Structure formats: structure tokens, C-alpha cells
């Protein structure tokens, strides 16, 4: 089991390294003068040259890359052009904010999707309905759904807050949006796995042992659903985090996503790059967590078999 985990870790680090290299390329090699971005109104060439020297932009590219890497390892993601703060200090406090939203969204999508999948499996009349719901949810872009929910629950019925913020009341709609968008995937997995389980012989064995339907569902069927669901969370992370970014913008949730999008408007490239690196690391890390979790839940995925 340890061997598999280490292998995943190595691949993950390679992926992150790739992202870092790309980020460096974009930051330092692509045309666009950082000095002008920092001091847009400066006219004097001497001032601009001074800024460039401060940013070590006059050194050879290799040295800049080494500096960059060194800085990264120390948690230094560069300095914002616009806000005069280190990128890390801007991202740091928002990690938790985004994390809370992301967690709430995952819980929502697993629960909503799972409920839909279970409904569709156990009740014949629900199957077509759930299918239609799934198709609609798949076709709707996440920000349209978010705005729709905001319109209905925020403006029409006034039960949800319409201003930004990071409180529990403000968490509901964005988490719900993330949950609804992701639900069809989990509904599909849960329905498929449940059908496989219910048709399998070990359910017949369980019935022959006189176990009740609810016991069988709880202790036998749903356990078998966990493993593919966890796999899905892991595979899905990249797309899921993208959704989190968009949702933060729609609902003005002050997390990393909103930070990145605003930085884009302000042409503040270091922040954008910093967030991507953080995002890549998060994907790798949580993928690992998902893998380990899955090994706990499904003994067949442990090494050696």
C-alpha cells in the first residue's frame, strides 16, 4: 500500500513541477513589462529601470528561474503588482475560505447525487424523472445556475442573502450550486453501482440470511458504492475546483477564485500564477487523500492483489 501511495506522490510532484515551469515561462518570458504594470504612470525610464532591477529582471533567465524556484520552496509566490503585498499573504487567508466552500460543495454533490441515484435505482417511476433532471443539470453552465438560484431565492423570495461575504448564510447558495452541478455524475455512479450490487449474488446471500432490506442497503450495498464515489471525487477535482472559482465570482464569495479573477482584471499576473500553482498542488494533494481513503474502504484496491 505504501508503494502505491509513493508512486502517486511522485507523479503528482512531476505534475506540479510542470505547472511551475509553465507558470515561470508565462511570468518572466512572455512579453509585457512588469515594471509598467507596477507603476503605470511612471514616465521616467530611470524609475522603470529601477523597478526592473528590483525585480531582478535584468539577470539571466536561468538565474531568475532558480530564484523563482527557491522562492516557491519557501512559500514565496512573488509579489502582487497592484497590491504591494506578497502573493502568499493574499492567498493564505483565503485558503480556508475557499476550502470551506469546496468542502460544502462536495458534501452537497455527493448527497444530492447519491439521493438521485438511489431514487432512480429503487423506484421505477423515478428513473425517467431523474434522467431528465440529470440532463438538465449537465447542460446548464454553472454560473447560469448560480444566477438563477440567486434570482429565485435571493431576489424573488428574499430568503438568501444577495450581498457577498463568507458567513454561513452566504454559504448555502454557492454550495447548493456546486452540489447541483456535480450531482448528475454521482447519481450515475451511485445508480450503476447499486444496480450491480443489487443484481449480484451476495445480495441474494444476504437475503437468505434473513437480513432486512434496510440492513442490506446500509451494510452491504452502500458500502460498495463508496469506492467508486471516492474515485470520482479524485478524478473530478480539476473540474470541480474550476467550478468553485466560477461560483465564487457569481456569489462574491471572498476566496481564492475571486482573488484570481479580480487579479486578471487588474492585470496582476503574479496573483493569477500563484493561484494556479496553489490549485495544482491542491489537486495533487487531494487526489492522494482520495486514493488513500479508497484503499481503506475497498480492500481490493490495496497493493498486492
Amino acid at each position, binding site marked *: 500500500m505504501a508503494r502505491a501511495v509513493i508512486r502517486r506522490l511522485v507523479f503528482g510532484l512531476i505534475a506540479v513541477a510542470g505547472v511551475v515551469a509553465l507558470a515561470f515561462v508565462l511570468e518572466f518570458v512572455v512579453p509585457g513589462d512588469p515594471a509598467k504594470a507596477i507603476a503605470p504612470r511612471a514616465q521616467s525610464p530611470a524609475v522603470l529601470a529601477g523597478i526592473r532591477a528590483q525585480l531582478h529582471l535584468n539577470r539571466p533567465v536561468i538565474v531568475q528561474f532558480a530564484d523563482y524556484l527557491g522562492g516557491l520552496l519557501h512559500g514565496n509566490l512573488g509579489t502582487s503588482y497592484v497590491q504591494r503585498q506578497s502573493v502568499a499573504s493574499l492567498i493564505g487567508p483565503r485558503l480556508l475560505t475557499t476550502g470551506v466552500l469546496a468542502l460544502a460543495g462536495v458534501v452537497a454533490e455527493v448527497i444530492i447525487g447519491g439521493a438521485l441515484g438511489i431514487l432512480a435505482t429503487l423506484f421505477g417511476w423515478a428513473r425517467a424523472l431523474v434522467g431528465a433532471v440529470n440532463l438538465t443539470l449537465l447542460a446548464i453552465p454553472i454560473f447560469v445556475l448560480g444566477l438563477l438560484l440567486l434570482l429565485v431565492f435571493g431576489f424573488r423570495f428574499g430568503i438568501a442573502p444577495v450581498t457577498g461575504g463568507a458567513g454561513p448564510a452566504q454559504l448555502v447558495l454557492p454550495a447548493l450550486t456546486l452540489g447541483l452541478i456535480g450531482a448528475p455524475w454521482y447519481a450515475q455512479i451511485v445508480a450503476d453501482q447499486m444496480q450491480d450490487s443489487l443484481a*449480484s*449474488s*451476495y445480495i*441474494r*446471500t*444476504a*437475503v*437468505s*440470511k*434473513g*437480513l*432486512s432490506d434496510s*440492513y442490506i442497503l446500509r*451494510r*452491504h450495498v452502500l*458500502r*460498495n458504492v463508496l*469506492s467508486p464515489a471516492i474515485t470520482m471525487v479524485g478524478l473530478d477535482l480539476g473540474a470541480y475546483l474550476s467550478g468553485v472559482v466560477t461560483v465564487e465570482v457569481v456569489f462574491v464569495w471572498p476566496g481564492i477564485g475571486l482573488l484570481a479573477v479580480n487579479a486578471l482584471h487588474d492585470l496582476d499576473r503574479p496573483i493569477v500564477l500563484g493561484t494556479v500553482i496553489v490549485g495544482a498542488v491542491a489537486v495533487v494533494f487531494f487526489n492522494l487523500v482520495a486514493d488513500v481513503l479508497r484503499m481503506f*474502504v*475497498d*480492500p*481490493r484496491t490495496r497493493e498486492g*492483489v
Partner: protein
Amino acid sequence: MRIAGAGNAPALEISGLNVRYGPVHAVFDACLTVGAGQVVALIGETGSGKSSLALAAAKLLPNSAAVTGQVSIAGREVSGLDAGEFRRIRAGLLGCIAQDAMASLNPVVPVGRQVGEVFAVHAGMGRRQAAEAAVAALAQVEIHNPAAVARLYAHQLSGGMRQRVMIAMAMALSPPLIVADEPTTALDVSTQAEILRLIGELRARVRCGLLWITHDMGVVAELADWAAVMYAGRIVEVGPVERVFDAPAHPYTLGLLQTRRDLRSGPVGAPLFQIPGSPPGPGEDPGGCPFRPRCPRATEVCAEVDPGLEPVGADGGLASGEHRAACHHPAAAPAGPADAPAAAP
């Protein structure tokens, strides 16, 4: 744990059992008895309805199957019970051993827990007690180091060990009836022999009735007291094993035994005996005796009337009523000279 009053009542009594899957009539009016402590082998090829009969008796068929008829286990009428009532008492009445142990065990739950469930849910044991009882049950089926094995998962065990686990689960509460659906078919020959021996011993110790479904006549000869032969959804012959094997009355049984004899002791190089033709497909019911197209003794009456099980006359020894066959021209009775054999279409 064992249902009170089981005593000497027959372990299983089936009468008038019919099983239909939609338009397909899989089991016709089956009547079968398994005495207390008796082993009855239910013999038939694939599609004969033997599994359907057993599953119907054990109430393990899906709701889409229509089952009618009477079923009693250990003297207790169960066919009339609704699902909930039966569920509560079934573990103490009836144990089931399936054919494919790998598919019949939950892959993500340790096997010890799967055995322990029976104790926890039906014998009211707490978790630790149930776990201990499970280990004891595994020891009963001759698993070495049962405590360690209890923690393993199905895919980590060999075929023979998995089958032992199934046996332990079925016999956990010492039920008066065990229904086993070809439990040794998937095993290699030596393991098969061990499992047979084990089942024989356990059964004798616990004194339960055993309905053993198989297509392997060798197993029947070794283990069974009684044999029932099924063809096209009907029981076509039933009786004590020695009588059925030595003096088969139904031409199908005769054919099966002949095939087996040729396989085992026929001259090398000689063609194997084969019953000509093939059994009717599901849903095919041309009327009359279903074996008629393949039967060397068939006459006109066979085309019109579906024979029921009738006692076959015996000369000496057992009471003749015990050996029955569904045939207009059972072997023990001489064929009438007036009935010319009809040509099979």
C-alpha cells in the same frame, strides 16, 4: 435457535409448486419431500428448472417471478407468510449454500463479519459475541486458524475456503433444512471430495435435511439418500437412490445413467451414449409428455397426456409407493403389445 417443534417433521415439503417467469413456465406442479435428516439430490441439466424449484422453495426468487403452491419447512407452512414474517425466522429454518462463493460473498466486508451477521441479527448477540461465534463456526467447517481467516476478504481466500465460509454461514443457526445449489461444481476434484465429506459429517452431526441440487450423478451416489430427477420443469422420477440408480423407471434417468456408465467404464474408443435430441427450450410446451420427442418408448398416449408421478411397482424390498416416475411406460412395467412405438417427429 433451532425452531422448536422441528423434531421429526419433514425438513421440506413441497406440493403443487409452480414457478412462472412471465410467460415462461419454469416449474410444473412440483411435489417433493425431504425427510428430517435426509439427503435428497435434485438432479437435472441446465434449464430443467432445478434451481428455480430450490430458489422458489427458499423464497429467493425476485418479485417478478410468480410462485404458487405449498411449501413447508420443518413442519411450518412458509408459502403463505409475507416477506417480513419469513425474513425473521428464515435463518433458523433454512440455510442456503450457493454455487459461486466468490460472487456470493460481499467483496468489501471481511468474511468473519459476514458469518457473524447471522448471529448478531437473529441470535441477538452483541458484536463481540457474534464475532466469537463466527470464529467458532469457521472452526466447525475445518478452517485452520479461523480467527485470522475471519479478518480476511473473499478475494484473499481459495475456492475451497470460500465454500467453507458459505457452509458456515448456512449452518450457523443449525437449521433443520439446508438447500445447496451445486456447491462443489466450481471446485477441483480433490477439494470437491473434501467438501462433500465435510458436509456429510456436519449434516449427520446436526441432523438437518439437505436438498442438494446437482447434475453430477457421482455426487448423488455418494451423498444422497433419495434422488429426484427433473426434466423440463417437472419431477419425472423420485425414489431411494439405490432404486433409482439400479432400476431407473423413467427413460430420461436411464439415459443419464447410461451416459455416465459409458464415461466411466465403457470400452475405450467406443462412442458415448447420448440421448438423442435436446430438451425443450424455456416456454416451449407442445403438450403431453415433454420427453416424448426423445423417448424410445413413446406412444400416442404420450403425445396427449402429460404423465404425473405414479408409483412404480417394485419386486421385494422397499414399499413400492416410494419409487415414483412420471411416465406412461415406466421401465418396471412391461410395454403393452398393442401400443406400437410412435415415430418421433
